[in-house]
C-alpha cells in the first residue's frame, strides 16, 4: 500500500521521471551521431635490445617506445601512410595533411594503438589500412638507428571496420539513461517532499480530519466517491 502511494506521489511528476531519461537518451544519440568514425589498428613492437628493464637508462627500449605515439601523429608518418593508400582511396580526395589530422596513437607497454578518425567511414578505414601497412617501415626508419637491427612489428588487430562511439557505446547510453532515470525519480521525490498541495481524497481527509463528501470536478479529475454523513459510502 505504501509502495502504491509512493508511486502515485512520484507519478504526479511523471514528466520529470520520463522526460529526463528521454532528454539524456536524445542527447546521447545526437552526440553519437555527431561523432566521427573511428578505425583502430593495434601492433606489438619489439625494439632490438629490449632487456625488460623498464626505465633502465642504459637500456631505454621501452622508453623509446614512448616516441611511437608521437611518430604516429607526425607529418612523416602521415606521408608514409598517404603513400600506402590503396588506389581505391584516391577518389576520396585525401592529402597528407588530412591524413595527419586523422591519425593519433597511444602506447601501453609494447602495444601501439593507432586511432584513425574521420567523418567519412571509408576514409577512416582506408587510412587505418594504410597505417597498418606503413607502420613497420616507419618504425624502422624513424626509431631505429641507422644500420641497426630492425624492429619486430606485428599487427595484432588489423583494421576491419570503422564505427562510431566505440564498442561500449550502447552500454554507455544505457547507463546514462538509467542514471538519468534515477535522477528523475530523485528529483520527483524531492519536489514531492517540498510540495504542500493536497492532491488526493485520502490525503485531504487525513490532513483535515473531515470526510470528503463529494468530488465535483468532473471525469477528467479522477474517480468520484460519495460518503453519507453517517460514514457509509
Amino acid at each position, binding site marked *: 500500500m505504501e509502495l502504491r502511494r509512493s508511486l502515485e506521489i512520484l507519478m504526479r511528476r511523471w514528466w520529470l521521471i520520463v522526460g529526463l531519461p528521454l532528454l539524456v537518451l536524445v542527447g546521447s544519440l545526437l552526440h553519437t551521431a555527431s561523432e566521427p568514425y573511428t578505425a583502430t589498428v593495434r601492433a606489438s613492437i619489439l625494439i632490438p635490445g629490449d632487456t625488460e628493464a623498464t626505465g633502465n637508462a642504459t637500456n631505454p627500449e621501452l622508453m623509446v617506445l614512448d616516441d611511437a605515439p608521437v611518430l604516429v601523429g607526425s607529418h612523416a608518418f602521415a606521408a608514409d601512410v598517404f603513400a600506402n593508400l590503396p588506389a581505391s582511396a584516391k577518389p576520396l580526395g585525401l592529402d597528407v595533411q588530412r591524413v595527419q589530422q586523422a591519425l593519433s596513437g597511444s602506447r601501453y607497454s609494447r602495444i601501439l594503438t593507432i586511432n584513425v578518425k574521420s567523418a567519412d567511414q571509408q576514409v577512416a578505414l582506408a587510412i587505418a589500412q594504410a597505417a597498418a601497412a606503413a607502420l613497420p617501415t616507419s618504425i624502422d626508419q624513424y626509431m631505429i638507428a641507422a644500420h641497426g637491427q630492425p624492429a619486430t612489428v606485428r599487427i595484432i588487430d588489423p583494421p576491419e571496420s570503422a564505427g562510431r562511439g566505440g564498442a561500449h557505446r550502447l552500454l554507455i547510453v544505457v547507463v546514462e539513461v538509467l542514471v538519468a532515470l534515477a535522477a528523475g525519480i530523485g528529483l520527483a521525490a524531492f519536489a514531492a517532499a517540498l510540495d*504542500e*498541495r493536497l492532491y488526493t481524497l485520502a490525503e485531504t481527509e487525513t490532513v483535515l480530519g473531515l470526510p470528503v463528501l463529494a468530488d465535483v470536478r468532473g471525469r477528467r479529475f479522477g474517480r468520484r466517491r460519495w460518503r453519507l454523513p453517517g460514514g457509509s459510502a
Partner: protein
Amino acid sequence: MNALIEEPRVDSDRVARVSPAFLSGESEPAAHCRSLATVLAARWGMDAAVAGLDEQRHARSCLLAGVDTGTAAVGLRLAIAFAQAGRATTLIDVTETGRGCDRFVEVPPALTSSDVSNDGAFSPIYATNVPNLGLVPAGSSEASGGDLQLADRVARLLQRTPTVEQGVAIVVAPALSVAPSALALARLVGGVLLAVTPGRTTRPDAVRARDALYAAGGRIWGVILAADERGSGAGATSER
C-alpha cells in the same frame, strides 16, 4: 429596489436565466451535485431529528466556502439539483457585489448593481428560469462595511428564504483566503462545506481555513473537491 422587503419577493417580471450548460443534468458535475444534494438532505434530516440545534442557525441551509477558490459554479449546480428535486431553493450569492454567479446566469439589465443591497437592506429574491430556484445577489462583506453587516444581512436573508416545507438555502461565499469576513456566515447556517481544489490548495491553507471556520462557530459537515473556479470568473480572483 433597495427598500426593506418584509416578505420574500420573487420578481417574476425579471427572470435571471441560468446558462443551459448548467441545466443539463447529463454532465458529470451535475450528477455529482445531485448526489451531494442527497447527502445534504440526509444531513439536514439527521439534524432535524436531533433536538437542541442552535436556533440562530437556519436549519436547512449550507455555506459553500472555498479555501482558495470561488464556489459559485458548485453552489449553482447544487442549488439547481435541489430545485429540480422540487425543493424551494434560494441561492444567496455573497461574493463580490453578489455577482459570483454572473458567468453562469444571464442577468437581465434590470438586475444591476443598484439592485444589490450594500446598505444593510435586503436584496430581493429573483426568479430564475429554473423552477423553484431563486437568486439573491447579496453583495460582498467589504462593500457593505464589515463582518457584522454581512452576517446580519445574510441572517435576515436566511429568515426570509421560503419557509415552505423542505425549502433550502445555499450560500455561496468568496474564497476564505481573500475574504475572511465570510467566516462570519459560518455560524448562521446549518453546516459548512469546505471546498478544496486538489493540486492547488495547500495543506497549511486548508487547515487554517478549517480552524478559522471552527473558531467562527461553523459546523463543517465535510469537504468537497472542487475545480479551480478562478478561470471561470467566479473564483477567488474575481471575488476579490
